[in-house]
C-alpha cells in the first residue's frame, strides 16, 4: 500500500469501524507472570519513550524493573541518570518506591557488549588478538545487524541475572521493525557459517569429501576475494575467524536461545506505531510476523494520537466561521454578513450544525446586541485563528482515523492503547509518568 491509496480508500464519510479492544496496560504491568516486555516498531515512533514510561509506571506500581534503552535522546538519558556508558543498569532516582518497586535503567553499548562476549569466551591472549583485529573493530563498531544482535545478547544477560522481576526492552532504531527479529540470526549465521569456515580452511572442505572441483572453486573464490578486498584485508578476516574458532557455533546458538526466550510465556510484545500509513504498515507486518513465530503479542501502542475537546465542530464549519469573522473585520459589515447577526439566521445556523441548537438560539437572542457597537477586529482575528487551528486539528484527526481504521480492519483482534501527542518532547520523569498514565487510560485526553 502506498500513500496514493490513502486518500481514496475508506473515505472520510464512511461509518467508523468497530472500535478495537482496549489494551489493559496496568494489568499487563501488574501481572507477576509478565517478565519481559519488548517495545518494537518503525523508526521514530516512540519505542524508547514507551519503554521508559512503562518502566517508570511498573516500578511505581511495585515491581522491580530494569529498562534496556537503545540510543535514547540525550536529555532523557540525562534525566534518568543513564548517560554514562558503562553498559550496566543503574538505579533511577526520583521514582516513587512506596509500593516496594524499583527502577533500574541502562543504555546499550553495543561495542562493549561485543567485547564482553569475546572476553568471556576466550583466554586473555586470544581475546586481545581478536579485539585488536581491524576486521573485528569494524564489525563491532556497527555493521548491519550488530546492534540488534547485541540488544538480544544483553537481554539474555539481564534475564540470566534474575535480579529483576520485569525487563522492559527497547529496540534499535532500524527502519523495519522486523530487523530486530531477523538481524541477530543473520549475523549469527554469518559468524558461524559455512562461508567463514571456508575462508578459514579451504583445503579441508575440498579434501574431506574428495570433491576436487569444490576445491578448485574455493581457491578461485578466495583468490578472487583476496584480489577484490586486498590480500591484507582477507588475511585480517582469516585471523579473526581463526581467533574466534572457540566460539564457533556460539553466536548462532546464543541468538537462537534469546529467540526462544522471546517465545516464552512471560514475554509480551508491544508494537508501537504512530497513526501514520508507514508506521502502521510496519506494525501490521510485525503483527503477522509475531503470529508466524509464535511470539506473544500484547497489543498495539498507538502513539502521538490527536484528539479535540470540540469534536462536535467540524473542520468545514470552523473554516467557514473563520472566514466570516475575517471578512467581517475587513469589509465593514456588508449586508450579507449582517444577515448572520440576525437572530433568525443565527438560529438556522445553530440548528444546522449543533446538536441542541434550536432551543438555545432562542435564549441567546440578546447576547450580541451590546457587542455590536464596538466590534473588535482584534478579537475577531484571534477567534478566526482559534477556528483555523481547530479546523487543522480536525483534519489531522480525520486522517489519523482513516489510517487506523485500515489497520483495525486488517487486525481487528489486536488490542490498542492510545497515547495522545503531548505538545512538547518527553525528556524527564514527569513526562514519562504522563505518558504512562495515558498508556494505562488507553484513550487520548480530550477525545
Amino acid at each position, binding site marked *: 500500500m502506498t500513500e496514493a491509496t490513502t486518500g481514496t480508500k475508506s473515505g472520510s464519510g464512511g461509518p467508523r469501524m468497530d472500535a478495537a479492544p482496549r489494551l489493559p496496560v496496568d494489568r499487563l504491568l501488574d501481572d507477576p507472570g509478565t517478565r519481559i516486555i519488548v517495545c518494537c516498531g518503525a523508526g521514530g515512533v516512540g519505542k524508547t519513550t514507551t519503554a521508559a514510561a512503562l518502566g517508570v509506571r511498573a516500578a511505581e506500581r511495585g515491581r522491580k524493573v530494569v529498562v534496556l534503552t537503545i540510543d535514547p535522546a540525550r536529555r532523557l538519558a540525562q534525566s534518568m541518570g543513564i548517560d554514562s556508558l558503562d553498559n550496566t543498569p543503574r538505579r533511577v532516582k526520583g521514582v516513587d518506591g512506596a509500593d516496594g518497586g524499583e527502577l533500574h535503567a541502562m543504555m546499550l553499548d553495543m561495542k562493549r557488549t561485543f567485547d564482553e562476549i569475546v572476553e568471556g569466551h576466550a583466554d586473555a591472549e586470544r581475546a586481545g588478538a581478536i579485539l585488536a583485529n581491524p576486521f573485528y573493530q569494524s564489525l563491532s563498531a556497527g555493521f548491519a545487524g550488530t546492534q540488534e544482535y547485541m540488544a538480544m545478547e544483553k537481554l539474555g544477560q539481564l534475564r540470566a541475572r534474575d535480579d529483576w522481576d520485569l525487563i522492559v526492552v527497547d529496540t534499535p532504531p532500524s527502519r523495519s521493525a522486523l530487523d530486530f527479529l531477523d538481524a541477530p540470526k543473520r549475523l549469527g549465521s554469518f559468524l558461524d557459517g559455512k562461508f567463514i569456515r571456508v575462508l578459514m580452511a579451504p583445503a579441508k572442505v575440498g579434501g574431506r569429501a574428495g570433491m576436487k572441483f569444490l576445491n578448485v572453486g574455493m581457491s578461485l573464490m578466495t583468490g578472487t576475494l583476496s584480489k577484490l578486498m586486498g590480500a591484507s584485508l582477507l588475511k585480517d578476516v582469516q585471523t579473526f575467524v581463526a581467533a574466534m574458532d572457540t566460539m564457533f557455533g556460539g553466536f548462532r546458538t546464543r541468538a537462537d536461545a534469546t529467540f526462544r526466550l522471546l517465545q516464552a510465556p512471560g514475554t509480551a510484545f508491544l508494537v508501537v506505531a504512530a497513526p501514520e500509513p508507514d508506521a502502521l504498515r510496519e506494525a501490521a507486518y510485525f503483527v503477522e510476523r509475531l503470529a508466524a513465530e509464535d511470539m506473544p503479542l500484547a497489543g498495539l501502542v498507538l502513539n502521538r494520537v490527536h484528539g479535540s475537546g*470540540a469534536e462536535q465542530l467540524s473542520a468545514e464549519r470552523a473554516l467557514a466561521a473563520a472566514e466570516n469573522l475575517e471578512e467581517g473585520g475587513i469589509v465593514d459589515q456588508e449586508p450579507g454578513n449582517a444577515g448572520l447577526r440576525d437572530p433568525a439566521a443565527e438560529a438556522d445556523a445553530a440548528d444546522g450544525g449543533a446538536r441542541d441548537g434550536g432551543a438555545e438560539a432562542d435564549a441567546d437572542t440578546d447576547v450580541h446586541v451590546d457587542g455590536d457597537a464596538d466590534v473588535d477586529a482584534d478579537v475577531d482575528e484571534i477567534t478566526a485563528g482559534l477556528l483555523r487551528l481547530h479546523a487543522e486539528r480536525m483534519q489531522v484527526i480525520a486522517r489519523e482515523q482513516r489510517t487506523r481504521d485500515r489497520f483495525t480492519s486488517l487486525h481487528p483482534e489486536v488490542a490498542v492503547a492510545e497515547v495522545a501527542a503531548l505538545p512538547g518532547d518527553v525528556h524527564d520523569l514527569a513526562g514519562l509518568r504522563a505518558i504512562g498514565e495515558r498508556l494505562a487510560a488507553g484513550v487520548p485526553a480530550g477525545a
Partner: protein
Amino acid sequence: MRGRGGEWLGSEAVSRLQVVSGKGGTGKTTVAAALALALAREGRRTLLVEVEGRQGIAQLFGAEALPYEERKIAVASGGGEVFALAIDAERALLDYLQMFYKLGSAGRALKKLGAIDFATTIAPGLRDVLLTGKACEAVRRKDKAGRYVYDHVIMDAPPTGRITRFLNVNDEVAGLARFGPIHNQAQAVMKVLKSPETAVHLVTLLEEMPVQETADGIAELREAGLPVGRVVVNMVRPHHLDEATLRAAADERRAEVARALSRAGLGGARRGGLAERLVDPLLAQAAEHASRVELERAQRTVLEQLDMETYELPLLGAGMDLAGLYELASELRKQAGEE
C-alpha cells in the same frame, strides 16, 4: 541546451552530487525527490538514486518497484527530466567483478556460496563502497560528445547517524585494502565526495532530536572533510497565533471570543451556550499550539547558531502525493532564486 550544472542554486551551483541525509523520518526521500525535480530545469536531466533498498522513490512516485536500471520517472515543470535508480549492492558487486575480472560463471558460484551476501553485508564497508562508487560513476559519466549524462545526481542517503561513515567508507577501505582495484576505486570516489562537486544536505524538523542530530551531523561531516550543503527545515507548520495574544485571549477576553464565535454563526455566547462551550477546548488547543510554537522557536535559535544556509519546506496538510512533490520542488526553486 544541456550543459554543466551552472548558474543556479547559489553556492551549490557546481555541486553535481547532492546528498540528502537527516534523521529517520524527517523527509529525506521526499526532499531528495523534490530537489531532483527542482534541479531538472528545462533541457536538464537529473538522476535520483536510493541506496537503502527500500523502494522509497517508487512508492513516492506511485511507480512500480525500480529495477537495477536507470529509468525516467518524471518530467519536471519546465520540461527537465528526472531519472531514478535504486542501487542494489549485490548487483553492483557482480557488475564490479565483471568489470574488473570478467568473472562470468564464477560470479554465480560466489553468489551460491553466500560470498556475495557475506561480502555486502559483513565485509567492512564493502557494501557502502559499492553504493557510493555507483553514484559517483553516474556523476562522472559522459556521453559521446563529452557532456555529462546527468547534470545533477541526487542521493536519498542513509540517515545522519550513519552518513559520515557511509560517505567516508572509501577512506576506511582504502586503508584496509591497501592495494588493488578496490583501493584505487575507493580513492577515486573519495576525490569526488570531498570536492565542491558534492554537497551534503541535512533535513530536519523543528524538533529537539532532529535538530540535535543535525548539529552533530554537521560537526562530524566537517571533521571528516566532507562538504556540508544546506539544512532543509521540513514540515514547517503555519503559526496562527502567538503566545502573547493567546494569553490575553485566555485571561481577559473569553467573553469576547464567545461573542465572536456567536457572531460567526456558531451558536449562543451566553454561559452554557454553544459558542461559549467551544471557548475552553479551542483555547486549550491554542495553548498546545503556542507551546509548540515556543519549542519551535527555541529549535530555530539552535539552528540559527549553526549559521548554515537553509531551505524551508511547508508541511503539506493533506499528506504527500505527486502534486505535493511538485509544490515542494517549486518552493525549492523559489527559495534558491531569492538569493
